[in-house]
């Protein structure tokens, strides 16, 4: 029996190319609980395309407040003026402990000095950085909305330049995982977009198991496939548990031992 999962890759909101059945925090909490997920890191969908992340993040944080299993994630665009103030507000008012960026949709390179400034601020505050590598399979995107994934090498370089920054790469492909993790003690990947026969066993042969986090990319993707990658994996229960929740718990405690009272 795999204990309650910690899902590091969950969203709430609307996306113009999909019809999400889960529209509210209550529905999300109920759905995730039914899938065996005890805690989820939840970001808003709209800031991917909407200019000011604060507009929808504020709505998200309010809606999540009644659900202790749903941990809010703040979206930041470091190219926008005022991101420090919005981060400060998210930390103080909404007790946010995780930040996400969308370098491809927000059109910035990870070697931009403004990204370095944000990274240093997150290190100073003990906040992990979630980098959304992609939200869709590039082959299936709308023809007028083609957005390449974030180059894995640039994520690795960012992690190298900021060794105290905890970087979580979300929706990476299997072929990118080794590039992301190789030689870096501060990079993790989630399972949502990684798939091959015997996914978890295979991936554990390619990267250290302690770098693999459970992520479903709900509601873009069905939740159950990610769950079953873990529950049906032919590997030691100890490793399944680490991936399901242990690694995320360890990551959380390393990042902000005093701030993150739940993890």
């Amino acid at each position, binding site marked *: 029996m795999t204990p309650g999962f910690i899902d590091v890759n969950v969203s709430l909101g609307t996306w113009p190319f999909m019809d999400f059945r889960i529209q509210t925090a209550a529905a999300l909490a109920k759905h995730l609980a039914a899938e065996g997920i005890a805690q989820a890191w939840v970001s808003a969908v709209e800031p991917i395309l909407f200019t000011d992340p604060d507009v929808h993040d504020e709505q998200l944080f309010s809606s999540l407040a009644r659900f202790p299993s749903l941990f809010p994630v703040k979206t930041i665009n470091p190219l926008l003026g005022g991101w420090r103030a919005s981060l400060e507000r998210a930390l103080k008012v909404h007790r946010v402990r995780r930040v996400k960026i969308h370098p491809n949709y927000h059109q910035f390179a990870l070697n931009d000095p403004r990204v370095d400034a944000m990274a240093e601020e997150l290190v100073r505050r003990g906040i992990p950085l979630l980098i959304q590598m992609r939200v869709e399979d590039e082959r299936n995107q709308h023809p007028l909305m083609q957005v390449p994934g974030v180059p894995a090498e640039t994520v690795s370089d960012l992690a190298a330049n900021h060794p105290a920054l905890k970087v979580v790469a979300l929706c990476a492909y299997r072929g990118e995982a080794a590039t992301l993790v190789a030689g870096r003690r501060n990079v993790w990947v989630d399972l949502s977009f990684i798939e091959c026969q015997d996914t978890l066993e295979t991936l554990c042969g390619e990267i250290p198991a302690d770098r693999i986090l459970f992520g479903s990319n709900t509601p873009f993707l069905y939740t159950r*496939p990610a769950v079953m990658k873990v529950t049906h994996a032919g590997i030691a229960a100890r490793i399944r548990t680490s991936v399901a929740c242990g690694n995320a718990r360890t990551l959380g405690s390393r990042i902000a031992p005093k701030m993150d009272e739940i993890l």
Partner: protein
Amino acid sequence: MIIDIHVHPPAVPAKRSLIGTPGETAARMLAAADRAGINALCILGRFWPYPDEEGIRQINDATLALVRSRPDRLYGLCFLNPTLPARFLLAELDRCLDAGLRGVKLEYEVNARDARLDPILKKVTERGVFLLHHAWYKTVGKCAHESDPSDIAHLAERHPRAQIVMAHLTACGMRGVLDIQGFENVWVDTSGSQPFSGMVEYAVNKLGSDRVLFGSDAPIRDFAAQLGRVQGAQLTEAQRRRILGGNAARLLKLDAGRLSQ
């Protein structure tokens, strides 16, 4: 009973052979399927693109050997390359069906609109078997001659009595489902791309659960994760049973007693 309609044989393309003997390969495939609780697999053939006549025979012989090693759990389709002469293709199809294979698999050697598919489809119709055809709506990375769902619809319109399974629901998307909606002789399998939420329910709503089949695309994909698309979808148990096995059993012509075991 859970039947996976879309499974590729584990092969070494450079060596043009299965990984291991047929018995070893079958055992490896079934061990992985067992972990996910999948009872039977339909093997599609094709280890490398554009095989010639000798290559086609080699592929189909390998599929037959796999199926014969575990006839209780493995079924197979005859793979064909429609760029080859029709006389050869039809003779090879008869050979494979007579030997126990259950239908035909076509990939992207030729687009589904191409008239070279017509004699194959006539034979498929005459023999009462089915065709499983690759399809995908790709924004980038489309292969030469690769079919999209509108091409499958064109094929279905030309051959209204032929049973056609369009591969890769989640890669064909809503547009692909709408393309084939009006063709009652077309089914779709659940494999393809990522497990985009709501697609199985959408296909069931538009096509009916009788026209949706569980397919994994293993070993490119993970049996368990692919099964999760269907297990995690909001369906009635009757719909889920049809998708996971009932519909495939009818196409593969498995007997009812076998199905209940």
